[in-house]
């Protein structure tokens, strides 16, 4: 399959990741713990088994706060 680069937003920064891939793999690639992060694809919260392929926007939300 032809893979294309997609922008992923995390903590206000944009990085580039090759798609398609599973949400789970995306987190793993970035060494992010799934208990500490949520992934929003095109404005929708998604589970880790979801495959990100045609997404316009991917945003990773850090849920852990240090307060």
């Amino acid at each position, binding site marked *: 399959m032809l893979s294309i680069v997609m922008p992923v937003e995390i903590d206000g920064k944009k990085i580039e990741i090759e798609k398609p891939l599973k949400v789970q793999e995306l987190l793993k690639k970035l060494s992010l*713990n799934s*208990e500490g992060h949520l992934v929003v694809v095109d404005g929708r919260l*998604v*589970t880790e088994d*979801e495959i990100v392929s045609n997404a316009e926007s991917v945003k990773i939300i850090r*849920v*852990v*706060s*240090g*307060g």
Partner: protein
Amino acid sequence: MKCKLCNDKAVIKLKAHNLSLCASHLLAFVERRVKNSIEKYGLFKKDDSLLVAVSGGKDSLSLWQILKKMGYKADGLYIHLGIDGYSDLSLDKALSFAKKLEGRLWVVFLKEIMNLGILDLARTLRRTYCSACGAIKRYIMNRISIEKGYTVLATGHNLDDEASSLLGNLLYWKEDYLRRKSIVLKSEEGHLVKKVKPFFLVSEREIAAYAVISQIDYIYEECPHSRGAKTLLYKEILNMIEEDSPGTKLNFLKGFLKRSGKVGEEKRDEKPVKYCISCNYPASGEKCFFCSLLERVNPSGSIVYREYSFLR
């Protein structure tokens, strides 16, 4: 992945509960957990008048929304600490949310009372930012509750906050903290308001999902002076364990509360306390730390409560 309850597309999997849920069932799940905690641990009753400590973050805004939705009389309190680039933005979030919720928000500007922001006050007190900030916030939250007649003060502390602070206190055997650690602190007529943490069994991830699904516009940035490092480290370690063995955080905290007999039991410090001659707050000398501080930095100052009411 499908929602275990309705077969719609799931938006989240909660491994600790072996549940995958759609958006609306995740909302219902979090609300039910809060309801159960309130009832099971006797946090408060229908006729209580609640004040929610609102920071503009996901936890406090979600908590406020849930309590209002459940029909409680719940107002908010926002304390503006005078931290550049953070306080104004978080106040903005808190105010817009109060409007959306049609609630009443009390706002206290620290600089208006003391002429100084939290950083200068911490230096004056010779304490770290977070320790001074915590003490001042607790004082103001308590004082407004007593003065405005709120019977319960609710904070947004979640499972991760509680489990990570438990871990930190255990690692260094801070027995004083461990003895006091509780989810309900009882009131002392005229001195201290009852304090509760309705989110103590809801994880940070569950609350964040709640906020995202509810489209709550919360402040994502951290306070630039966050004690962060240690708390974040403990939270991260717990989340690594959680990923490997789902449910560990819940067991850890519940196990502690059960063993220490703290659930529902309402205990403050045991030692006899004196009370401040000018405000009735517990004090070690004649005056409490807050009144002494005020005397030092702004003798003519007093607390001003600004009311923003969007009640209908």
